[in-house]
């Protein structure tokens, strides 16, 4: 147990904090590209957690999953989303239906809610309360982002944040799902982002905007 291991263990114990910070910053962000960058950072934190957990349990599978998450969620998906934002040539704000401070207040409330929600299960499932709460908070704020943001691309970002939450919940309670399932989920997500990217382009071509709150009529 060297100095490095001690530092790593302490940093892991407090890494839930970084996830809370990314969630709050995404809630406060005004531009889509900022949200994408923050999602990338969030995935990086989760990658670090996977590495730490798999090192503690001496599982080689964990490292494979970590590399997978790193390439897909930290690099590939944010890059694809950036390209979509660039090529859409549409206004780049998230056009939220709540103001930045309201969003942060709501995200803060959701974080508190998730702390109280996981409290009864921490003893049963084991794992760190902050990490488990972070997982639930990611799911909740992902949903909140999808509901409150009007730009079609932000629905994608919200879904990705939500997925990060589900992934983290699996990691903290069962130390990760089997490798085959992880691979399946990650590639599913990548395909999903591609498909939704195509959708966003179609929405823009058909309606000349990306505001989902205006998509109320069917058009040929």
């Amino acid at each position: 147990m060297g100095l490095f291991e001690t530092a790593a263990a302490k940093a892991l114990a407090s890494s839930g904090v970084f996830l809370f910070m990314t969630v709050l910053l995404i809630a406060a962000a005004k531009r889509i590209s900022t949200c994408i960058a923050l999602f990338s950072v969030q995935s990086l934190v989760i990658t670090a957690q996977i590495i730490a957990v798999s090192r503690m349990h001496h599982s080689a599978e964990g490292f494979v999953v970590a590399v997978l998450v790193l390439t897909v969620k930290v690099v590939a998906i944010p890059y694809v989303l950036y390209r979509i934002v660039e090529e859409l040539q549409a206004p780049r704000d998230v056009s939220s239906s709540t103001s930045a401070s309201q969003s942060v207040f709501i995200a803060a409330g959701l974080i508190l809610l998730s702390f109280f929600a996981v409290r009864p299960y921490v003893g049963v499932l084991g794992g760190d309360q902050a990490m488990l709460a972070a997982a639930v908070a990611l799911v909740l704020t992902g949903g909140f982002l999808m509901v409150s943001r009007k730009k079609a691309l932000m629905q994608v970002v919200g879904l990705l944040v939500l997925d990060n939450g589900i992934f983290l919940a699996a990691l903290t309670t069962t130390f990760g799902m089997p490798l085959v399932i992880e691979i399946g989920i990650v590639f599913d997500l990548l395909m999903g982002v591609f498909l939704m990217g195509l959708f966003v382009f179609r929405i823009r071509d058909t309606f000349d905007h990306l505001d989902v709150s205006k998509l109320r009529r069917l058009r040929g």
Partner: protein
Amino acid sequence: MTLAMNAVQVLLLILLAPLVRGVIARLKARIQNRHGATVWRPYADLVKLFRKEDLVPDSASFVFRLAPIVVFATTLVVAAFVPLLHGSALLGVSGDFIFLVYFLALGRFFLMLGAMDGGSSFGGMGASREALVSTLAEAPFLLALMSVAILAHNGSIAGMVQWTIGQSFFQFSAVHALAFMALALVAIAETGRIPVDNPTTHLELTMIHEAMVLEYSGPSLALIEWASAIKLTVVMALLIALFVPWGIASSLSALALVVASLVLLLKIAALVLTLALVESSVAKLRMYLVPDFLGVASALAILAVVFTALMR
């Protein structure tokens, strides 16, 4: 010995504050591909202003003359609260964080009075804007400091710093992270930097601080400018002392103090660089968006206080 060291700390803050301002201006100029003035320009400005005549509007009362002195004095007192090189401060035991917040508020209150007393329409406009910003910034400022104070079980700034040094560097607590984010936002509003206020422009639509000091000249203006430079440095030192105090001297030996000075220099340089980068890349907010900006800070600060109970 400790007392002497504490006095030296305050002197350092007061004398180096214009330099910090000069370095920020120079860095911003370089980032924006301009040459920029020398980093010593704020000192030259101060010397020039102190030599000039102090012009007072006919309509002004004694408040107009009093305001710069009160502003400067309150800023000095606040500077004496913040540990810089070693763990204690000159007024470390005689007041807590609430005292610090309201001493800053007192200075601002007198600046607003002076601005309104000057009789120009810009003064009143700047004062009303400043009142709006400071009212909204007060709650997050107090709450964020309070959350750290609750963790440290100590109300004085020096006590909080001592407590933080005892913590492990790698054990980030949610309270500290949230309080830091809230205080960083408040610090921007408090010191009147971009995106809340632009210290380099006299555009009538946007200026806050500049509008208030428009009627001042000569030594009065010098005092106000010097005080605002000290305030910027003090707020920076406060952020450093509360959240990254590691490296501060634990004893009064020469070696520890030299190391502490070097570490402090590095930290301030990092903060100054961040500030210059942010100010060059962010646009100033519309006045009506400032409440939203400070609302984010309030949300973070409230969450920080709630977390102190949750994390126990």
